[in-house]
């Protein structure tokens, strides 16, 4: 026998199910009067620094059908590359930017949409800069554990080419699944849960 390490096991995940809106965005599913607003519906205000962008897209299942019951959350740095988090020790992030947003896919159009700012660059642990990116977390009925991916931007080619995470992806033909396409002031980022175009998901 040896000493026990004493670590606990992480609580296992279970699917968010079809009624995730009740808990996470009750106003969206017409449960009004409990919370004033749904948490995470607004990331910016009129004082937020940086370039305003819309990040939008749909989430497709293996049959090509877009999910109308998914919930997405994003987490990103502000326009200067700082996170609005106590664990951010490099400086103070823009107080007018939350960095975190939550959006259910529309029950009709299946689209998600975040009004946010283009993030700045954040250093990798060895000091190299990561390209501007947004972390995305997707839950839904039929998804047993939240799926995590990243959105990069198609007009940041130079930074993307040097990005330490993108560089380590062995199958180079999959890298474009992580890159949002600019369309006016929007970036479009469609997510494919499986199939030929399957988005890269991370274990991080």
């Amino acid at each position, binding site marked *: 026998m040896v000493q026990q390490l*004493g*670590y*606990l*096991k*992480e*609580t*296992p*995940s*279970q699917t*968010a*199910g*079809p*009624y*995730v*809106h*009740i*808990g996470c965005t*009750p106003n969206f*599913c017409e*449960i009004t*009067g*409990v*919370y004033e607003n749904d948490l995470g519906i607004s990331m910016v205000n009129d004082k937020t620094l940086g370039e305003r962008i819309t990040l939008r897209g749909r989430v497709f*299942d*293996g049959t090509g*059908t877009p*999910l109308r019951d998914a919930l997405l959350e994003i*987490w990103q740095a502000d326009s200067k590359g700082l*996170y609005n988090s106590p*664990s*951010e*020790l490099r400086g103070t992030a823009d107080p007018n930017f*939350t*960095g*975190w947003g939550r959006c259910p896919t529309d029950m009709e159009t299946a689209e998600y949409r975040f009004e946010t700012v283009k993030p700045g660059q954040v250093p990798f*642990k*060895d000091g190299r800069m*990561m390209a501007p*990116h947004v972390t995305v*977390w997707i*839950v*839904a*009925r*039929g998804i*047993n*554990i*939240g*799926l995590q991916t*990243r959105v990069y931007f198609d007009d940041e080619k130079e930074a993307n080419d040097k990005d330490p*995470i993108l560089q*380590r*992806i062995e199958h180079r033909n999959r890298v474009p699944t992580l890159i949002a396409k600019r369309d006016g002031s929007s970036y479009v980022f469609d997510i494919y*849960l*499986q199939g030929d175009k*399957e988005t*890269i*998901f*991370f*274990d*991080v």
Partner: protein
Amino acid sequence: MSNRKPETGAFFQRDRQWHPPAYTPEYKTSVVRSPQRALISFDNTLSEITGPVFGHSMLGELDADLIYNYAKPGESAIGQRIIVRGRVVDERGKGVAGALLEFWQANAGGRYRHKREGYLAALDPNFGGCGRTITDDDGYYRFRTVKPGAYPWPNGVNDWRPAHIHFSVFGHGFAQRLITQMYFEGDPMIWNCPIVKSIPDKAAIEQLIAALDMNNTIPMDARAYKFDIVLRGRRSTLFENRMEGN
């Protein structure tokens, strides 16, 4: 939590054998919603080490009281009154202060208040089904609700969900983000459920079963269930080759 130094270490690797895999054909919806390629692994960067935190000031007075937070004045939700309480800790056993918990559930008859829900059990006009709270300085939380009913769902011909409460949990880093479900001690339905059985290890399933806690029961009022939640732990940054923040 304000007088505690924020931690900046990377989180322990997630034990994906302990969690349900993406593809669990007994739970049919997972078949076309499960990625088929391997996840790509990398050690946490600042993007995963950091995460949003929420202040107690965002909470309304009745946010943690589902019996009253949707009820008309002077009325209350129908069902067995229960208190759910527990502690959010990380894998090192440290209490997680300031963790936002959101919960949602069916009413006592097993019916959700949702336009996509078609079960014939009646809606309770005084029950919305959502609540939230934030853990205290030691990681403890509690809320009051009614015990949810079991309900049938379209999967197999005769599949029923055991009584459960859904939980969404934020720790201090986005890599700790977790959604799960709490079950109730003694419910024989737990072991028949395809969603429960998406978790391969029996001990992991047992981690989701709240214990009846008669010591915290309020006599003549509400029974109590204890449900502790474990989030990913962090590595120490002491010997990282580059001290974060330096």
